[in-house]
């Protein structure tokens, strides 16, 4: 009996020994700690500079996308045209393990493209396929292709019309289009090229090059995929087999060279801080990080404000993201960028509103690591994947210079009653 009582007492005590974590609502100042959290907000107007811009980080042919655009402007038209070259099968076709036959020509071909980005608000979007010289390469310019883009049109396809057809197929032309999924809204485009359009030139080993121009009722801007999402050509060949013409279908051919050319070319760099464009441009901002902030307990918000010197360039629908990062070492334009932390903002072409980037993470890193260079890099998040570019006033423009607004906390007076 007494043992049971002891066990009961023990159980009660164990329950009572559990401690809850409870807080009391502070009734200040009488029943609050004397120390308070002190917040300081300061604008660092003169702490940024010298700054500079650099271009050429990612070139058009290095971009994972081929950009097409037709954006008429007040003074000029932004015109970007994807170009690509697809190597042929050669002069002979392997018929069997011991036999080859001369390729006589092509009955037809099927060109497959992926439109990985497009403005769904664009109406009557048309792709015009041009045959280009097979000599196109990384040095090819927009001007050099002016002639073939004028006289070598081989097909025009209306994307909106094609997508609107049942099953996305045109029974007359043999073209088809399909939205691959509802998330990326990528469009798979398959164009049938007849004998005239799909000329298999044996002296060229069957190599072909094509270019695409865009047209639409209003602004047109698309991005075509490359590599795994790139242009693919399926030949349907006629081959001589011991005097008999036979049909053969080789494996599909992808494009070893895919790029885009555009006009007008990007404006030359000046004293402004350019970010984006093709080839992509970066800007470096060197920050004199004040010791009184570095020594503060904690930075809780830091905002970089940048005033555009001109309206952001680019297709209206192609808002692009720029990011602020720090560098491991400040080597100017070749500074290795610290990939760990970055803060971003979206740039809307045509806008001249002040751009604000929350760079709290970056300043917290500087405060924690005094050896870290206090240099900010502004760059496009997707380099050379948008034609858009923005230019900000530099630090020498006193009225519009970049500024940092920093909110930080002083050390709490711990241990003071």
């Amino acid at each position, binding site marked *: 009996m007494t043992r049971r009582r*002891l066990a009961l007492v023990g159980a009660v005590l164990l329950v009572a020994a559990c401690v809850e974590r409870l807080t*009391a609502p502070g*009734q200040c100042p009488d029943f609050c*700690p004397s120390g308070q959290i002190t917040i300081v907000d300061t604008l660092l107007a003169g702490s940024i500079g010298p700054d500079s811009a650099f271009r050429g980080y990612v070139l058009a042919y290095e971009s994972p996308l081929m950009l097409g655009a037709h954006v008429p402007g007040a003074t000029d038209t932004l015109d970007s045209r994807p170009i690509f070259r697809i190597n042929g099968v050669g002069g002979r076709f392997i018929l069997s393990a011991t036999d080859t036959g001369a390729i006589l020509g092509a009955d037809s071909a099927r060109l497959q493209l992926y439109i990985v980005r497009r403005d769904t608000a664009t109406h009557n979007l048309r792709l015009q396929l041009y045959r280009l010289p097979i000599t196109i390469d990384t040095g090819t310019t927009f001007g050099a292709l002016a002639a073939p883009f004028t006289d070598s049109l081989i097909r025009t396809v209306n994307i909106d019309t094609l997508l609107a057809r049942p099953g996305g197929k045109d029974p007359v032309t043999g073209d088809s289009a399909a939205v691959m999924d509802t998330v990326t809204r990528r469009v798979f485009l398959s164009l049938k090229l007849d004998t005239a359009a799909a000329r298999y030139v044996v002296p060229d080993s069957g190599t072909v090059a094509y270019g695409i121009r865009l047209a639409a009722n209003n602004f047109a801007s698309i991005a075509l995929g490359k590599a795994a999402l790139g242009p693919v050509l399926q030949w349907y060949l006629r081959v001589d087999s011991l005097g008999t013409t036979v049909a053969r279908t080789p494996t599909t051919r992808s494009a070893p060279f895919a790029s885009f050319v555009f006009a007008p070319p990007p404006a030359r760099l000046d004293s402004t801080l350019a970010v984006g464009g093709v080839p992509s441009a970066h800007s470096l901002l060197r920050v004199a990080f004040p010791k009184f902030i570095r020594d503060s307990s904690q930075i809780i918000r830091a905002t970089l404000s940048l005033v555009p010197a001109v309206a952001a360039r680019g297709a209206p629908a192609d808002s692009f993201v720029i990011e602020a990062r720090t560098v491991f070492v400040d080597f100017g334009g070749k500074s290795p960028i610290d990939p760990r932390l970055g803060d971003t903002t979206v740039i809307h072409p045509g806008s001249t509103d002040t751009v604000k980037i929350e760079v709290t993470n970056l300043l917290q890193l500087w405060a924690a690591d005094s050896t870290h260079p206090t240099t900010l890099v502004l760059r496009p998040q997707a380099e050379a994947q948008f034609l858009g570019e923005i230019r900000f006033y530099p630090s020498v423009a006193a009225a519009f210079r970049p500024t940092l607004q920093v909110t930080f906390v002083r*050390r709490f007076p711990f241990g003071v009653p």
Partner: protein
Amino acid sequence: MRRPDRWTGGRAAGTAVVLAALFLSASPPDRLSAQDSQFGIRGLGTPGRWESVRSRTTGGAFGPFDPLSPLTDAPLADIGQLTATAAGGTSNRDATIAGTTTRLRATRFPVMGVAGPVGPRVAVAAGFTTYLDKSWDVTLRDSLLLRGTLQPYTDEIVSDGSVADVRFAVAARLSRRIAIGAGVHVLAGSTRETAERRFDDSTFHTVQQSADVRYDGLGVSGSVLLGIAPGLSIVAWARSDNRLRAQVADTTSAVTDLPLMAGGGLLFAPSPSARFAASAAWRSWSKAGAGAFDTWNWSAGAEFGSRRMPIRFGARGGQFPFGPGTTAPTETAASVGTGRAFSQGRAVIDLGLERLERRGAGLTERVWTMLVGITVRP
């Protein structure tokens, strides 16, 4: 004829020790953030009660005469044999201010110690007790004009820890009527303090700062126990602590003077089954600075029945040393308790219940405290 404790023997004592050990070692699932008196938030903290459970359940009146209570040193002279004791208490606190009541809870282990004779007339003791509880957790809701916008936020300021009084004491019985004692007190402890601010606008990162604050100090105490007549004793005691130094990362953040203390008590035992006591104490807490007050405290209590299973009760009153305003908050308490001896008194469990009320500056605290003590005489 009943043979008391026959079955209990070693097993009962063992069970009691296990239960007490379980109780004392029971830990919460989350980090401890107990809540002591809200009056102590702006002051040094909540002063501990240097009493065993037996003394505390008599309102503290038996404290000056209790060799297991670290209040006075002279009663150690009568400890008789090696004795270890520990106590634990769980408090449920209702803090009412401006019509709003908040329920708070804390578990503490305010006393642990060991004492024993080292000669025919000399005994020594070592142990610790809580000098200042410094655990509290305050949440605030306010707003701040930041970047041209009123930003609402929630603050949570937390202190978790205490300052312990580590005592080394010696006592001697000089004669049948007189015993004296003295002690050295090392004050040591730490608190983990955290200050956090969460803005409603998450663009502002959460402010989170924390620090470990270490405390140290030193004190001495002395006391005299006089047997006036058979069954009648008085005690007088005094203690002086120098200062409490707070250090954060080896930098002294505060130095606070600590009080002088003095007190006395009267014990009357007209029969072996009836004991009465009363005591009073004065502490010069006003030395600690603004918001601190000198205090007077009194207590009276009684113990009835055999020492094997007595009934105890008592009351106490006086002032709390810290609080806003111009006068010290007041406190009154009543307590009741009992004990149970096992194995011919080799193990004792004491249980108690205390009801405390503190008032001052618009705040009223009402506290239920359940106390458990374990005493072992191997």
